[in-house]
């Protein structure tokens, strides 16, 4: 049972003893939901520094089942929160698999929530979900309707059919769809169906992209009209040199493909593959910077710093400069390397938070756990003396202290917890300084993100972009949250999400 494995709630329900006492069942429910939200924000079922992929997904799967079995409506409502894509897909899948257990009203809300969430997800994830539904033999009316509506809402189904060919085929077959007609693709009726199921039957297609695909089989020039991932296969088939291929496919690259290919293209001197760093999302950009060698980072210091600052300013929006005096304790110990799956993810989150906090605060002091001061050159190294850094931070008398760390405080173990406890109980009982711990890593063994001290709220964080919301939420949750409040909060979120 999950209660015994986590001694306190994820968002720090505790402290305020004067609040009206709900029944313990309510508190348990509230804690469970918050626990689940933290897991759904941070865990992606991938390998982490301290736990394997198997442990992560086993632990996450248990939480999903537990919540689905006990609080189905709250489980569905978490689709409206900033949970990560992996968990959104899992929730959608679990809800669709267990349709029979829901009553009509629940089904209605769930259906809308799922449809809304799927519209926000990247298409490959949704196609993968459809594939899984087929594998699980889930083919109820609601599932088919959701698939039909999602496919109908795709801006260009012919493009999808080329780029995600087998996935679209699986979806069409599973939901009994006649694609050409519903999607309103121009040209002769059911051209899309022919393309998917019997592509060689036609001598020519009326839809340009389908025709380009047909011609690309024997004509090199045609492959540059196709999406990059498809064109890559044709280029290999025609033996096009990589540099030439990259140079000519450059206009068809998506934003993230550009970012991903930029370094290898530079090595091949295909200079038209240039990503606009300033337009990249903050955390993604931080990951990119950390993937560069230290020498490269020094060489491009001005450009990278400017791009990170621009992304941070954009993320901060109108809150920029509103936060007063902020000290951040950022973890760049060896464990922030993450794993081969999530390479340097925890460090990337810390770096992104660093730039975001610099944009938010009027007066900002970053303290890296290694003691380094040049944020652009951070790399995962050394132990985690969090306790000492927190002391350094508190000495500067900040209004807010933000700790970004995986919570493995080991030099010495538990010092951070002791410092925070004594600070709260003896030195700052009036909460003069708001302290928040943001943790990018899900701890599979504890079914939660690892906390530093019970008196300090800890929230899971996936993207630094969510920092503002998380910090506000965590401070609000320093008191005591009951299930009624939580339900109300979720209802508001759901309303905003669907409306």
């Amino acid at each position, binding site marked *: 049972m999950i209660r015994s494995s986590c001694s306190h709630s994820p968002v720090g329900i505790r402290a305020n003893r004067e609040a009206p006492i709900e029944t313990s069942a309510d508190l348990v429910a509230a804690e469970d939901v918050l626990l689940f939200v933290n897991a759904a924000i941070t865990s992606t079922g991938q390998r982490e520094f301290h736990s394997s992929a198997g442990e992560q997904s086993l632990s996450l799967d248990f939480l999903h089942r537990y919540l689905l079995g006990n609080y189905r409506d709250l489980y569905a409502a978490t689709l409206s929160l900033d949970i990560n894509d992996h968990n959104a897909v899992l929730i959608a899948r679990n809800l669709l698999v267990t349709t029979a257990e829901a009553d009509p009203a629940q089904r209605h809300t769930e259906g809308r929530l799922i449809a809304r969430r799927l519209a926000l997800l990247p298409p490959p994830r949704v196609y993968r979900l459809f594939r899984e539904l087929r594998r699980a033999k889930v083919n109820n009316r609601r599932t088919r309707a959701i698939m039909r509506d999602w496919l109908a809402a795709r801006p260009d189904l012919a493009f999808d059919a080329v780029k995600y060919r087998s996935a679209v085929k699986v979806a069409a077959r599973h939901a009994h769809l006649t694609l050409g007609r519903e999607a309103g693709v121009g040209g002769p009726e059911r051209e899309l169906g022919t393309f998917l199921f019997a592509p060689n039957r036609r001598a020519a297609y009326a839809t340009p992209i389908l025709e380009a695909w047909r011609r690309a089989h024997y004509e090199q020039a045609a492959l540059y009209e196709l999406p990059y991932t498809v064109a890559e296969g044709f280029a290999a088939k025609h033996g096009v040199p990589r540099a030439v291929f990259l140079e000519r496919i450059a206009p068809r690259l998506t934003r993230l493909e550009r970012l991903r290919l930029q370094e290898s293209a530079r090595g091949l001197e295909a200079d038209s593959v240039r990503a606009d760093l300033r337009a990249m999302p903050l955390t993604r950009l931080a990951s990119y910077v950390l993937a560069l060698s230290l020498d490269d980072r020094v060489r491009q210091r001005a450009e990278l710093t400017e791009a990170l600052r621009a992304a941070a300013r954009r993320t901060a929006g109108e809150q920029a400069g509103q936060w007063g005096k902020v000290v951040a304790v950022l973890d760049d110990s060896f464990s922030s390397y993450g794993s081969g799956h999530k390479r340097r993810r925890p460090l990337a989150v810390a770096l992104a938070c660093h730039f975001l906090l610099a944009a938010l605060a009027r007066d900002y002091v970053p303290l890296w756990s290694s003691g380094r001061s040049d944020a652009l050159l951070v790399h995962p190294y*050394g132990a985690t003396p969090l306790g000492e850094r927190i002391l350094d931070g508190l000495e500067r008398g900040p209004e807010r202290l933000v700790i970004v760390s995986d919570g493995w405080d080991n030099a010495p*173990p*538990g010092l951070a*917890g002791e410092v925070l406890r004594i600070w709260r*109980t003896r*030195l700052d009982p009036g909460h003069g300084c708001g302290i928040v711990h943001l943790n990018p890593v899900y701890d599979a063994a504890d079914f939660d993100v690892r906390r530093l001290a019970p008196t300090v709220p800890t929230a899971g964080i996936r993207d630094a972009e969510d920092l503002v919301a998380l910090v506000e939420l965590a401070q609000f949750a320093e008191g005591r949250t009951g299930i009624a409040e939580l339900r109300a909060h979720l209802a508001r979120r759901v309303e905003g999400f669907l409306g």
Partner: protein
Amino acid sequence: MTALTLNGLSSRPAQAWGGVRLVPLVRDEPIEDLRLDARLYEADLGIVELDARTTYSSYIPHGFVATWTGDGTPAAAYGTQLSGAAARDPAPRRMSLRFHRRMARRVDKNRLRFMPLHLALEGYLALHFGGPEIAWEEWSRRAIDHGLSPRVEEAYTGATVRGLADALRVFEILPGQCGVLVYAADALAAAFVVPHPGDYRALHSTLVHDLYGELIHHYAMLSMPVTDFRARIADTSVRSLADLRAQARSQQDAWAAFHDRAMAGGLLEGDYTYQQVHQMGRYRLSRFLPPFERQRENHIGELITDEAGRLAYLKTFRLSENQVRRGHLLTRLAACDWNLPDTAAALGVTESELGLRIAAAGFGSLLRQDVLDRYRAQARR
């Protein structure tokens, strides 16, 4: 006969993972003029440049595989060795290794790797025990001609010690770290010290290829996860941030003192017999043997110290209880010049009892068969 000291090193908070606890040792000042042999590094990893007056020495840990030979076949260094400037020095004492095709491919390209472990331990023991020096009539011809060899001791690779590989993987190497003490279920398994943090980083992961005694293997297998020694600060004494900081610092010192006294006591307070092997410049390579007292920790190992007694290199292996018993028996025999009646008198047992003990310890083949049979007959009576 002196104790072992960790001169120049201080212990830092332990990092525990499962049943394994690793205690990092940090050097305030790294030793620059004794480094891991350049040939053991990947080609592009340079060694620090020193001025012309300083003599540069290097060491090769026991059992390291590299292509020392001209024809590119891998060989393992035999015993830890000290050498002068790497470029001019001849190839180290080594034993060539024959691998199956698949293994040979894995060791090529000068990769650091400990040699097959039974070889390493056998090497240790062969270095320590030469067999009877006086040909008393009870000893068999083989024992007199060949000593104890071939001796085969069994040990476990680190990879089979449960939790060790994971513990080493998630261990966060400290800045300036030059050594580590490995505990399994809080029993000291091995100590490992190198002169320079760069060497430590290069060698950290080789601890998993290292060898560990049966005792450690069993402890790790059966142990529950060990708990962290968490910092605890009494709130009543804290009135300001400065107090808090002072308390935090004293926690650190208290841990180091506790660790060196209580946890590493078995290693540091032992009474060792040193045997100097080699001297090079200001460094001295020695091997040491424990007193072979039963029912307590016994470590054998090799170390390099400088003229001021500062520890530059250390590698230990903890003997299992059986090995200690055998070592005890051999030392007593050696102390009495391998004379059986004298040894029996010194141990307070009869000669036949001693003979059976020797046989039970696995040294039966050292005694002449008819002598052994006589002892057995006496015992039956």
